[in-house]
């Protein structure tokens, strides 16, 4: 009698189904994040909504949901729409829910303008006039909008100059003054009365202050230039708004843009998102510092965790006498991988920040006390905490790799007169390298997604400076930094304007996943290269 089910079939089907479920879940998550995040930057058409009560709104459609009548025939009156109406300074909120039954008409005027502002979010309205050098150009004239765009571009250039002076020149000056001040303080702490040095430092400070005056004057001039030209906008309720061009990032008329134009706009905006600094409590602008912080932290973590994990595994597997002790250590290492990450964070605070950081401060940065330098959260401590968190992963993977190196290859090396160390270094480690890299890949994946321990060891909502800059020694490991994971938390749950921040949350999550994927793919490519190079024998 032929049997319908062979004995093993059920297992094959169950594991197949489990795999399918997992893939669907992962795919669904990625799809959700990608659509919600990537869609948010698209310049949607902006509608001119006239309501029954006579009020008029200019907004982009951001959602539609059922409010009543969950059963039976659904009509317009059962739905309401969510509009992004901008003009937070006028309406108080960027978003408005409107019952569809309230809407009298919707049209899409070509001349509806969206202004992306440095403050108060977007402005929706119509161009009334441009005030350029005291001259007034009416918004109704045909090339007024093109002119506005040009003026905004010029203003942005001026704004960049201002930033350059503020961050660059004035930043340098402040850095220099602070250094001289610390030197002075160091003198007085050590009780050295050295009037010569002292006057030298003071002289330098005076020089810095003089050049600060120059920079400040420059700044003043640029600011006047920036705010000289203005644009007058009018919103749908007839209120006029005078905006200095320096306050505007960009202006566009989505209803007047073709698809190609929109794509170009989208790409530009996306790039801005990746490469710009955040604005407005992180809800606007870019997230570059967070990307930078995340990647740098993972790199430092990798640099630290690799040698430690590999050496520990080498010792456990190759040198330690296999016995009860080693077994206990191995069990501990495995358990360490399961300790909640916040526990590592607490340990990091106690051990790295207060312990080691405190000692470093009291030895090398006495002048700055009581302000801590290393005795507070910073990218180094966060990286080390994560290294601690991920070292078990590397150890376990490396040990497995070492165990799989065939015995006869080691004997081959020893038989040629190599010492044990030479054998380990030249034959065993290269053979185990793919496994070691697998460990690193897992460690990176874990570290990139970790937030809890970072929140107490150095991540901040907004870091004034990147951990790498032009001031000697260029890499400032003591600085606080921004991180994508924390950024998501901050935007989503700490932001005063959570509705406006929502797309940013998805975008940031998308980028975080993208970075994990990129870091992993890099490591995987390297590993596969090595695998090919050391391809296992066909015989």
């Amino acid at each position, binding site marked *: 009698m032929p049997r319908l089910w062979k004995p093993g079939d059920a297992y094959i089907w169950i594991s197949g189904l489990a795999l399918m479920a997992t893939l669907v879940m992962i795919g669904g998550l990625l799809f959700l994040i990608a659509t919600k995040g990537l869609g948010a930057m698209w310049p949607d058409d902006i509608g001119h909504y006239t309501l029954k009560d006579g009020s008029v709104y200019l907004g982009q459609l951001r959602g539609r949901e059922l409010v009543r009548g969950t059963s039976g025939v659904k009509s317009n009156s059962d739905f309401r729409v969510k509009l992004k109406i901008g003009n937070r300074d006028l309406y108080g909120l960027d978003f408005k829910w409107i019952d569809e039954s309230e809407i009298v008409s919707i049209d899409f005027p070509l001349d509806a303008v969206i202004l992306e502002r440095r403050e108060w979010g977007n402005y929706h309205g119509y161009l009334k006039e441009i005030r350029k050098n005291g001259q007034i150009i009416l918004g109704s004239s045909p090339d007024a909008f093109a002119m506005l765009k040009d003026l905004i571009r010029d203003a942005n250039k001026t704004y960049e100059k201002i930033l350059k002076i503020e961050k660059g020149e004035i930043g340098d000056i402040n850095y220099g003054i602070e250094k001289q001040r610390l030197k002075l303080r160091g003198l007085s702490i050590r009780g050295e009365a050295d009037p010569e040095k002292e006057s030298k430092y003071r002289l330098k400070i005076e020089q810095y202050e003089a050049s600060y005056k120059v920079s400040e004057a420059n700044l003043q001039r640029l600011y006047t230039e920036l705010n000289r030209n203005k644009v007058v906008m009018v919103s749908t309720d007839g209120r006029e708004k005078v905006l200095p061009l320096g306050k505007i990032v960009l202006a566009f008329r989505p209803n007047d843009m073709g698809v190609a134009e929109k794509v170009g706009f989208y790409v530009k905006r996306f790039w801005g998102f990746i490469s710009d600094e955040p604005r407005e409590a992180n809800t606007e602008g870019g997230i570059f510092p967070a990307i930078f912080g995340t990647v740098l932290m993972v790199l430092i973590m990798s640099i630290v965790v690799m040698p430690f994990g590999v050496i520990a595994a080498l010792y456990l597997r190759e040198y330690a006498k296999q016995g009860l002790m080693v077994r206990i250590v191995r069990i501990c290492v495995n358990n360490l991988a399961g300790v909640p990450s916040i526990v590592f964070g607490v340990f990091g605070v106690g051990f790295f920040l207060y312990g080691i950081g405190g000692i470093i401060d009291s030895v090398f940065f006495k002048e700055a006390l009581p302000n801590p330098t290393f005795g507070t959260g910073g990218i180094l401590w966060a990286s080390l905490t994560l290294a601690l968190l991920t070292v078990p992963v590397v150890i376990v993977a490396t040990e497995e790799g070492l165990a799989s190196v*065939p015995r*006869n*290859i080691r*004997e*081959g*090396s*020893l*038989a*040629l*007169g*190599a*010492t044990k160390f*030479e054998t380990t270094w*030249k*034959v065993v480690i*290269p*053979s185990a390298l793919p496994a070691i890299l697998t460990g690193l890949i897992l460690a990176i994946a874990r570290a990139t997604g970790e937030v809890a321990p970072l929140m107490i060891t150095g991540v901040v909502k907004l870091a004034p400076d990147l951990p790498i800059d032009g001031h000697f020694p260029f890499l400032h490991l003591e600085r606080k930094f921004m991180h994508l994971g924390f950024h998501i938390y901050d935007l989503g749950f700490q932001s005063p304007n959570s509705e406006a921040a929502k797309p940013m949350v998805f975008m940031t999550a998308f980028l975080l996943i993208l970075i994990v994927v990129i870091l992993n793919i890099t490591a995987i490519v390297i590993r596969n290269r090595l695998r*090919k*190079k*050391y*391809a*296992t*024998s*066909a*015989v």
Partner: protein
Amino acid sequence: MASGEAMAQQQQFNTPGTNGVSPSPEPRRSEKAITVPDPLVEVEGVSLFYGAKQALRDVCMNIPKKKVTAFIGPSGCGKSTLLRCFNRLNDLVDGCRVEGNIFINGKSIFDPDVDITDLRKRVGMVFQKSNPFPKSIYENVAYGARIAGVNKKLVLDELVEKNLKRAALWDEVSDRLNDSAMGLSGGQQQRLCIARAVAVEPDVLLMDEPCSALDPIATAKIEDLITELKQKFTIVIVTHNMQQASRVSDYTAFMYIGDIVEFDTTEKIFLNPGKKHTEDYVSGKFG
């Protein structure tokens, strides 16, 4: 029944005194060890234990210089084990204990002042299973020299070419020296391991069934190579192939359950063996 016979013979030829396993302070020449001209390796009463299991029983023999000595015997009789005593590779095996003594060039290899890496440089080995390193072909051959601290490119290039030619591998790999050695065929890998071993210029070359995985053509190449290398090295080869033993070796030792049953010139072992047991084995009647 055959083994019973062998045991009987063994008993007959072991004088009671030599069955003791404690190392004697005096170098002791066994009656079983025929005198060979110009011995390089002298094995004196070596017994070896893997834990409680005895793998070698009071082995005594002399291995002549610049000759090929073959070890034959049934599987598991201790040929590899004896071979691995010569370069003290058994030191790595947990629970392995050796008694007796081995002299190379008149010096005991178990002396405390012997540098074991130095010993292994002088006693090269080719393993039963080919074991190229997961590196390029070039680096495999240059490995020994690099360990010895040679890093000059010119010297290494020359060394690699010379030894690959010696191992009859040069023509096949000269255009892909930087490819992984793992991509070679089994026979090529084995020849690469031979090149790697001879590149160190050892005094003694131990070969543990170097042809067990090879086709007749590669085997012939390696046999030619052995004859060639004999000019410079003392070679000890383990083989299961009687024809091979008779073709390449000058002396042959027949081993059985951890002991040397008979050791003599190859001619004698194959044409006129002194013992029935040996005759049965070489003629294929048992084993």
